[in-house]
C-alpha cells in the first residue's frame, strides 16, 4: 500500500468533481472521454498492475488497418485517452497509441511499452488470436464492445444510454494473469 492511501481525502472529492465537470462540460469532443477516464480508474483497481508494468502504463489501441470505422473508433479512444495524460494510476503515468492489427505490429507495440490491448471495432474474427497474444504476455485485454468478452477479452467500458458500465470476464482475466480489487468487482457487471 502506498503512502498516498492515507493522505487527506478532501482532494478526492475535488478531483471527482473536476473530472465529472469536464466530462459533462466537454462531452461531444470525443465519445470515449468518459469511458477512457473510467478505464484509468479501473486500472487503479488492478491488483497485478504493479507487478506487470513498469514506470508507466501503455495502452495500445488495436484497429483494423483497412477499415475506416475501426480506425475512427480507435481515434475516438486515442482522443479520449488523451484526458488521462494529466493523471497517474498508482504513481504511473498513462500513455496511449494506436496500432493496426498484425502480430508483428502488436509485438512492436509491446516493445514500445503496451500493457493494455484495447481492441477497437471490426476485429471480432481476430479477437481469439489477440487474446492468445495477450495471454502469453500477461497483457490486459479490453474490447470496445461487450461482445468481445464472450470468449476472448477481459474488460469492456461502455455506455448504455447515458450510463457508463464496466463489464469484466473474470475467467479470461485469470488466463491473462490479471486480478482486480473487490471494490471494482462489486461495481462491475461480471460476465459468466
Amino acid at each position, binding site marked *: *500500500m502506498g503512502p*498516498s*492511501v492515507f493522505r487527506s*481525502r478532501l*482532494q*478526492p472529492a475535488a*478531483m*471527482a468533481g473536476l*473530472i*465529472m465537470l469536464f466530462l459533462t462540460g466537454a462531452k461531444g469532443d470525443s465519445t470515449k472521454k468518459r469511458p477512457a477516464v*473510467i478505464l484509468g*480508474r*479501473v486500472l*487503479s*483497481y488492478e491488483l497485478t498492475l*504493479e*507487478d*506487470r*508494468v*513498469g*514506470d*508507466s502504463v*501503455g495502452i495500445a489501441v488495436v484497429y483494423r488497418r483497412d477499415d475506416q470505422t475501426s480506425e475512427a473508433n480507435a481515434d475516438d479512444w*486515442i482522443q479520449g*485517452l*488523451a484526458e*488521462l*495524460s*494529466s*493523471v*497517474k*494510476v498508482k504513481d504511473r*503515468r*498513462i*500513455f*496511449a*497509441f*494506436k*496500432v*493496426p492489427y498484425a502480430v508483428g505490429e502488436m509485438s512492436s507495440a*509491446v*516493445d514500445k*511499452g503496451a500493457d493494455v490491448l484495447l481492441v477497437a471495432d471490426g476485429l471480432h474474427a481476430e479477437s481469439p488470436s489477440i487474446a492468445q497474444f495477450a495471454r502469453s*504476455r*500477461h497483457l490486459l485485454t479490453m474490447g470496445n464492445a461487450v461482445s468481445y468478452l464472450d470468449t476472448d477479452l477481459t474488460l469492456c467500458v461502455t455506455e448504455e444510454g447515458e450510463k*457508463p*458500465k*464496466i463489464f*469484466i470476464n473474470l*475467467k479470461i482475466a485469470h488466463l491473462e*494473469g490479471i*486480478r482486480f*480489487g*473487490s*471494490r471494482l*468487482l*462489486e*461495481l462491475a457487471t461480471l*460476465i*459468466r
Partner: protein
Amino acid sequence: MTIAIVGLCRAGPSRAAEPPPAASPDDTSGKSEAVAPSDKTSDIEDSALEGLLGMSLEDKLGTTEAVSRTNESVLRAPATITTLDSKQIRLSGATTVPEVLRFVPGVAVYRSAANNYIVALRGTGGLSGNNVVLLIDGIAINSPLDGNVSWDLIPLHVEDIERIEVVRGPVSPTYGANAYTGVINIVTRTSVGLTPSYAARIRAGADLAGNPIGSVSGRFMHVEKKLEFKWFMNAEHDGTSPRPVVSTTGLHEHETPADRFSLMSALSYIPTKQSRVSVEVGQAWSRRSSMEDLVLDSVPQAQRLIFGRALYELRELRGPLTSARFWLQGTSQRITSQKDEDIGLSYDGTHSLRGIAGTDLVFALHDTLSAMVGGQGSLERMDASYLHPNANDAVRGAYGFYGGIKASPLSSLDVILTGRGDMAPISAKLEYSYRASAIYHTDSWALRLTGASAFRAPSYVEAAGRFVDPTSRVILLEGFNSIGAPRNTSVELGATFSPLTTLTVSPTVYLSRLTNLMVEDFESLVRRTFRNDREPRWYTGGELEASWRVTDTVSLLPSFSILHWLDTSTPFETNVGVPEQNSRYSGGLRVQGVFGNDRWGYGVGAMVVSPRNYNIRAGVPVVILSKRIPTSAYLTAMIERQLASAPSVWISLRLSAGIPTNVPESPQPLASPLGQSAILGFQVRTD
C-alpha cells in the same frame, strides 16, 4: 520480454518502458499515434468510481426479493431493509448470523449459551424467538411447533452467505403468519464470475477460560453451460458454553457445549435468461443447551432439520404475465433432548413434517400498473408429547393467498397496495394482513411512507398444549384453541439519501400498535395457560444507519436505534411488548476495509445497548425470573492477510468480547456471559 506476475510467474524484473513522445497533431504518417503524459498530474485513485459511473442511489443499493417476493430495487421497496453483503459479513469478524445481526438497527440479539440466541425486532424482546421469519434462499426454517427460529440450524457457514437482508416492520402481507415484526432472508453464495469457485476453511480458538472453539467449512460451485451447482458444508464446535453449577431445580450440574453439522446443495438448470428450474436440499444437525422459553434448564438438546424445495421460475416475460414462480417445499424437524424426570417439560421426541405448494405471479396491466397474486397450500403433522391427545399427531391443512397492485402515477412515485389472507393449521381461523406504501424517489434520495398490519399465528403450544407432570399428575401447561393471533399494526416513514457519492444514510421512524398479545396466565401459580391481552400497546421508535466509504481502504458503518413506549400505566403481563424487556437505546459503529492491494482485510466494531429489566414468570414448571441486565457492549475485531495468491490462501484472527464480562445478556437463569474469545483461521478461496 519478461513480466513479473504475482502467482503466475515471478521470474525477472518488471518491464520499465518509457512512453513514446507525443505525436504531432499534423503527423499522420506513422503507423501508431501516441498520447503522452502532460507535466501536471494528479492521482486517478482520488476520484470515486461510483461518481465516474454516474451511479444513482438506486444503482448503488441494488435489488431485493425479500420484501415483496419479486425482484425490486431496495430504494423502492415498500419496507425498511438493511442489506449486509458477503464482504461486510466476512469483515465483521462474526462467526454466526446472530452476531452479524447485532449491528443492524432495530434488531436485538441475546445469547443464552453457545449457539443459542434470541433475535428480536422492534420491541419484541423477551424469551420468545418466534417474532420473526428466517428464510434461507426464500425457504422458511422456523419451527412449525412454535414458530421459533433456531439460529443454530442455518445450514451453512456465515462466510458462505452472499447477503443477509433484514426487513423490519410487518411483512405478513408477503409471507403470512409470524412475519409480523420482520423477515430475515439469507441468500447463499452465487458463482458469478469464476467457475469453478470454492472456499475451504479451518479455524480454531478458545475463550479466556480455555474452552475450545473451532470449525471446518467450505463451499464448491460450478457452472457448466446451462447447469449451476452449489454445495456447502459446515461443522462447528463451540465450547464457550455455560457451566451451570446448579439447575433451576437445584439438582444438576451440566456442561453443554454446542456442536453443529450441516450440508446444503442446489442444482439449477437455466435453459434461457428468462427461466430457471432449481432443486435445493439441505440438512442441519445441532446440539446445544436446551434453554428456551418453556425449558429453562440447560441440558443437551439436539435438533435435526431436513428441507428441500423444487422451484420453477419465469422472469422478464413479454406478455401480460411478466414473472411467475411455482414451488414445492418440504421440511422435517426432529428434537431429541436429554430428559430428567424432575426438570419438567422437555422438547424430547418432538417431530414435525410440513409440505407446501405455492405460486407467485406478476402481471403488467399497463406501463405504469402491475399486479401481484399468489398463494400457497400446506399439509403438516406435529408429534409432541406435550400436546393435547386430540391435537397430537394429526395431519392439518392450511392455506394463504394474496394480491396486490403497484402503480406509478408519476415516474418518481410508486404506490403499492397488498392484502393477504391466511388460515393457520392449528386454530383454523382466517387472518388478514395488509400493507399500503407510497414511495417518492429521485436519483439521490427517496422517501417512503408505509402502513401495514400483520400477525403471528398461535403456536401449537399456545393453542393445543397439554403437559401433565408425570409424578404429581398436575397439569403444568395447557393451551386453548380459542386463542387469538397477536397483531402488529405499524406506520413508518423512512428516507434514504446520499449527501456524498460514497455516503448513504437511512433514517426511519415508526409508530406501532401491538394487540392481542399473548399473556402468560398462571391461574394457580403452577399451571401455565395463555390468553390474549385486550389492552393495545403503543410504542414508537427510530432507526438510523449509514454506510460511508471514506476511502478505498476505510468504510464506516454506524447504526443507532431508539424505542419509546407511549403507555406504561397498565401492567404488562405479556411475553413480548414489555417496555422493560427492551433496550431503549442501542448504537454501534463498524469500521471495515481492505488495503495493501487487497491482501489485507480488517474490521472492528462496537455495539452498546442500554439496560433491560425482567420480572416475569417462565418455564414449565413455572419459575419467577427477576433479573436486570445492565448496559452492555459487544466488541469485535478481525484481521486477515493473504499468504499466497495462487491458490489464494488467507490467515485470519478474530477477537470478540462482551462487557461486562461476568453478566449474561440473556435473562435465562443459567445463561452464560458472552466472554472473550480469539479464533485463528486459515482459508483457501477463489475471490
